[in-house]
């Protein structure tokens, strides 16, 4: 395997050198945060693209995790050595979009751009307040509930819960069968951001932050506090497992059959198929029937590709050409199948459906279905500055709720205060 990828790297490197020298093609630097298997797929896409034409050579470079990639891009931009394309994650979107002149909107870049070609859940997350798409959604996922079918059979439960009310009725049965009912891997993303989307609740002033940077966070609301009061009760009753903030530690608890249900990403599907030694299924993110009768869709997590400013027209043409290639249906289907991320265009979704992919692997469709559920006023996403730090603030107070060192009311009050101080700093910096 290692030898194979090494060989591929040599061949690929050779072909890059060869083509630049021979044809003086436009070289496009693409910095991304996709490690492991995902990185291999990224390289494959770039290789296929480079082989498909001779004018442009795309050079993907892995820069580490999401934050590392953004930091590398910032440092490079300040040194005027920025790549043409950079992958920026959801929480960093405000940092690049609100800085005037850091990026060239994808809607301006691509010819024949039509936002309606994209599936509803991904359209506006990386758009500006006027609905113009700035970043091209790349690896898009959405939170899903995974459940251990064997554990459910042992506990005598037929179906996974669709609501949290149902969850409360089955959790004791799972406990009796020796399982902790639920764990979850990203409380800001799943239990806060998408909680608001699912229940169609506003999460920040200024149109969830899309209209202005002078905004305040609205997490300190009764629905959120009710939910977290419940989560704390579940934790104390042994229905909820908390294995730290790290994504993998909570997923491992599911893989090792400590917990019967796990809230993760639709992109986790591929990995689980390999690591879980039991039958598992995926279903929609549960909601509170007491808050909403007909739940709304969720929005995406993951990251988008941004074209960085400061390059010449020929290079932007090349970037546009590559973006067109990336969004072409067959390449989206390839990406979708290889990684588990959702296809971002309607056409790709239709093609995947047509070729019968979801008949053989129905769970792979759940993410798209959830993203395509009817949207509400507050389901398009959020645009909040210093959101990386705000997420840290949230984690901090969620820890305090779990450990019992702060009451739910106090934790949310402090969270609001600290987050709003960060938002104010961001507004003063980027206005």
């Amino acid at each position, binding site marked *: 395997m290692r030898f194979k990828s090494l060989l591929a790297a040599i061949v690929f490197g050779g072909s890059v050198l060869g083509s630049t020298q021979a044809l003086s093609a436009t070289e496009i630097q693409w910095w991304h945060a996709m490690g492991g298997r995902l990185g291999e797929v990224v390289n494959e896409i770039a290789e296929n693209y480079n082989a498909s034409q001779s004018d442009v050579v795309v050079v993907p470079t892995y820069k580490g995790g999401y*934050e590392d990639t*953004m*930091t590398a891009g*910032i440092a490079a*931009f*300040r040194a005027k050595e920025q790549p043409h394309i950079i992958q920026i994650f959801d929480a*960093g979107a405000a*940092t*690049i979009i*609100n*800085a*005037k*002149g*850091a990026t060239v909107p994808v809607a301006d870049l691509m010819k024949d751009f039509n936002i309606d070609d994209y599936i509803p859940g991904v359209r506006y997350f990386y758009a500006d307040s006027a609905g113009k798409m700035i970043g091209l959604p790349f690896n898009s996922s959405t939170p899903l509930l995974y459940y251990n079918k064997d554990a459910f059979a042992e506990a005598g439960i037929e179906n996974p819960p669709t609501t949290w009310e149902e969850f409360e009725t089955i959790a004791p049965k799972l406990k009796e069968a020796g399982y902790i009912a639920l764990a979850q891997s990203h409380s800001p993303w799943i239990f806060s951001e998408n909680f608001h989307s699912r229940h169609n609740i506003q999460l920040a002033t200024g149109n969830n932050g899309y209209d202005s940077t002078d905004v305040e966070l609205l997490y300190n609301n009764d629905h959120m506090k009710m939910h977290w009061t419940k989560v704390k009760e579940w934790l104390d009753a042994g229905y909820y497992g*908390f*294995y*730290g*903030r790290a994504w993998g*530690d909570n997923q*491992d*608890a599911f893989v*090792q059959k*400590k917990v019967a249900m796990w809230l993760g990403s639709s992109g986790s599907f591929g990995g689980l198929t390999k690591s879980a030694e039991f039958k598992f299924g995926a279903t929609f993110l549960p909601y509170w029937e007491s808050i909403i009768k007909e739940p709304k869709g969720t929005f995406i997590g993951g990251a988008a590709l941004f074209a960085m400013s400061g390059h010449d027209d020929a290079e932007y043409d090349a970037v546009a050409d590559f973006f067109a290639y990336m969004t072409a249906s067959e390449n989206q289907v390839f990406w979708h199948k290889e990684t588990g991320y959702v296809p971002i265009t309607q056409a790709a979704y239709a093609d995947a459906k047509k070729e019968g992919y979801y008949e053989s692997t129905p769970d792979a469709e759940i993410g798209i279905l959830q993203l395509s559920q009817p949207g509400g006023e507050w389901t398009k996403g959020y645009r909040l500055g*210093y959101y*990386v*730090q705000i997420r*840290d*603030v949230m*984690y*901090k*107070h969620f*820890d*305090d709720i*779990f*450990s019992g*060192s*702060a009451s739910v009311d106090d934790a949310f009050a*402090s969270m609001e205060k*600290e987050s709003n*101080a960060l938002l104010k*700093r961001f507004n*003063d*910096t*980027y206005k």
Partner: protein
Amino acid sequence: MKRVQFEHSAIPYLFVAPQIVIIVIFFLWPAAQAIYQSFLLEDAWGLSSQFVWFRNYADTILSESWLQAAGFTLVFSTLVTFLSLSLALLLAVKANEVIRGASTYKTTLMWAYAIAPPVAGLMGNLMFNPLIGDLYKFFNAIGWDFNHKLDSFDAGFVVVLISVWKQVSVNFIFFLSGLQGIPKSVNEASMMDCRSPTRRFWTITFPLLAPTTFFLMVINITYAFFETFGIIDTTTRGAPGGATNTLVFKVFQDGFRGADLGGSSAQSVVLMLIVLALTVVQFRFIERKVHY
């Protein structure tokens, strides 16, 4: 008195030049940059910036999370310095007395010296993993309701334990060579005067080790302040609830993860001042008691 003026030669300057160049490039220049940045409110990409005097300092240093990190850093550094010095001293004294298999003991104790802090952190992380960690299971098995993911004391215990473990062997090496540098005749003379080994240690050996201890104290405090970053980053990352966040980790979080350059610079300037003040205190007040 007649002053003797030697002829100046350029050669000494040439010899110190590489060191000076390194200090300028890797310390003075970045430090100056940090001070400059700490007065600016600037977007991450450097596209717009405004001079805001001490706003960054006020925003960060007065925030609850910074004060919490400062408190933890203080406790953490004191514990790590004290524990790793005293444990290493105890081990060195005992290893120095061993006659049979002395080199085996010494090698075993020095062994962890070459381990980098992040590696020590990763190892600790595995041992304390709630699902597979042996130490996690052990502590829970002996009746300690141990959960470092939720309990701040337990989390602090984990990072202190790993940091001390990693540092003990470094200190051990220095203490051991310090002990071996004490002339035999002094020890023999003291043995004739005093029967109690404990008393001999505190009145003769320890004062003679004072220069080593002082030197180690300085580098251990620096270690606890800065180098333990790798351990925090690979284990708790400041959790739970910011209880194990150190000042240097917060600088990293705000600057490198959060892209808040001004706030992060202000924090690093303050951190620099704290360590500077600590070092001055050490040299002025503690070094006086050290006899070389």
